[in-house]
């Protein structure tokens, strides 16, 4: 059932004005509850190219200056002692330990798997990471490496990172990854189609991939925010992805110059917050690429808590796509435990 939010009656904190404007627009489009939420939470919006376009272009514009100022302001919080210890452990448990190189070998993936399960072999109280993220052909190796632990295996698919292949090829890519045992699939959207305004094509592609994932694998949709040029586009892509059934929306592939920034992650967190308020469906967020220090990671956690709320402060709903970040988190953790600054000699080289 879709809740239809009457004007001004929403209970979400903050930004009431914008929010009720949102709801008004939404209420017009969502005229009656649907009985098939699995297909689309809002069939009227996604009924045709033109309704989808009208909806996406009807989303409120993003105040770029305000967004960046808010993201920067939230980055100034001072997080110390016990709060820091909690945040570091939480951040470690949210890491999708990633290796997406042409030079990936089974040995490297096994090493990564071992590290994901036991990040700090010298300190068994360090939590495991959320997942390892690899290319589809490495999924069986990764699966074996993390077997018996709670660590998930995520696989990029759909002609990652460019996404320039036919739908049949992309779906075959996804099916292969899922068949090999991937718990999570990270797909890239067709940025070319999105920028050309063919929103329905992007929507249908995501929906098809979601179907190929079946019920076993969670779908993360990568927008490659660095290629979408504007904040408005990022907001539209976020809603498009969520409408099409994404379980996670993810900023970037990590393969372009501009990756996850606090501002675009904040924007996506606002989108998942509003989406849940409107549809009751919770969607996760995964910033990826460019987050290298524990300090940065903590800033992102503040964004999550202050924007989406504590419900998202869990590895089920928030992830970091990163590789070198984990070492810095571990070094900071060692510093907190021993009082001595740690060094790269005390974490693994990967």
């Amino acid at each position, binding site marked *: 059932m879709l809740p239809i939010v009457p004007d001004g009656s929403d209970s979400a904190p903050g930004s009431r004005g914008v929010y009720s404007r949102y709801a008004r627009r939404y209420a017009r489009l969502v005229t009656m509850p649907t009985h098939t939420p699995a297909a689309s939470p809002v069939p009227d919006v996604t009924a045709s190219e033109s309704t989808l376009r009208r909806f996406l272009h009807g989303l409120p514009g993003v105040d770029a200056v305000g967004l960046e100022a808010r993201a920067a302001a939230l980055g100034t919080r001072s997080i110390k002692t016990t709060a820091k210890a909690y945040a570091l452990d939480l951040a470690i448990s949210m890491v999708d330990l990633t290796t997406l190189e042409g030079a990936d070998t089974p040995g490297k993936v096994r090493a990564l798997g071992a590290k994901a399960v036991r990040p700090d072999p010298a300190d068994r109280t360090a939590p495991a990471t959320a997942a390892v993220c690899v290319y589809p052909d490495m999924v069986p190796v990764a699966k074996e490496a993390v077997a018996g632990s709670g660590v998930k295996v995520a696989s990029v698919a759909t002609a990652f990172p460019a996404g320039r292949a036919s739908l049949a090829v992309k779906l075959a890519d996804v099916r292969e990854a899922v068949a090999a045992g991937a718990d999570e699939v990270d797909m890239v959207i067709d940025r070319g189609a999105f920028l050309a305004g063919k929103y329905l094509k992007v929507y249908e592609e995501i929906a098809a991939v979601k179907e190929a994932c079946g019920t076993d694998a969670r779908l993360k949709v990568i927008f490659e925010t660095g290629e979408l040029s504007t904040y408005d586009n990022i907001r539209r892509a976020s809603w498009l992805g969520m409408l099409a059934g994404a379980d996670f929306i993810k900023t970037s592939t990590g393969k372009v110059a501009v990756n996850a920034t606090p501002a675009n992650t904040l924007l996506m967190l606002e989108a998942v917050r509003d989406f849940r308020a409107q549809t009751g469906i919770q969607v996760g967020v995964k910033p990826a690429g460019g987050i290298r220090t524990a300090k940065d990671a903590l800033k992102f956690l503040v964004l999550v808590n202050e924007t989406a709320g504590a419900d998202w402060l869990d590895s089920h709903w928030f992830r970091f796509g990163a590789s070198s970040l984990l070492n810095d988190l571990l070094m900071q953790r*060692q510093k907190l435990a021993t*009082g*001595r*600054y*740690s*060094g*790269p*000699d*005390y974490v693994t080289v990967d």
Partner: protein
Amino acid sequence: MSDARLSVLKTYKLYVGGKFPRSESGRVYEVTDVKGDWLANAPLSSRKDARDAVVAARKAFGGWSGATAYNRGQVLYRVAEMLEGRRAQFVHEVAGAEGLSKSKAAAVVDATIDRWVWYAGWTDKIAQVVGGANPVAGPYFNLSSPEPTGVVAVLAPQESSFLGLVSVLAPVVATGNTAVVVASERSPLPALSLAEVLATSDVPGGVVNILSGRTAEIAAPLAAHQDVNAIDLAGADEALAKELETAAADNLKRVVRPQPVDDWSATPGLERLTAFLETKTVWHPTGALGAAGSSY
């Protein structure tokens, strides 16, 4: 219009990673001459400044230790050239810091520049002196080669603010290490001005990092830091040195204990050059032995 110019006061800053930041803590302390008259405000570094300096030094280590010894010598000689150009400034600062007459301060500055040149000359000679070919019983060449140990924390001598500083800093960087220097607590100004010389003389950023402040406060995290390979305790008093040596033991840092130095201008010898070197020994087969039992 008035004839009197407004005075342009100098803001002394730290030198970390080739940049001139203020202390992360935002603190400063008053530096006075020996009579107690105010000279300037110097940054009062915190442990986070020390941490940042170690990160910068570690980052610079690969490039500096990988540079050829000859190139390091050229760069260090360039520092001496720049020091020469700023001689008047250093004479003024050393005179103020140590309460010396102008002529005595000039002699100290000259000795300091000479000291720097002396160490610059050693960069490509130390390997011949402390390394070499070892005779072994087998068809191998066996070569010992001195290698820099890594990031070295240097507590500069408290009394000799310039000559003493260069006497402990130059051997560390001449052999290819990178340094985090804690300047003399009471008279840090010559050290902070030396940073400006280093920044303009081809020394890569991060090779030398200079902090000012309370020696005990900055030295403690440096001595305990797991990513610092060695520490020179020249500027620590007996009690502090003991405490720091204990902290340094945890990751097996090389430690140079403070030794009483009566005269910094005396020829220093090779002791400080070799203190921060590791000996790498390489075995290399000479090739198949001929019928005569020798490959030569």
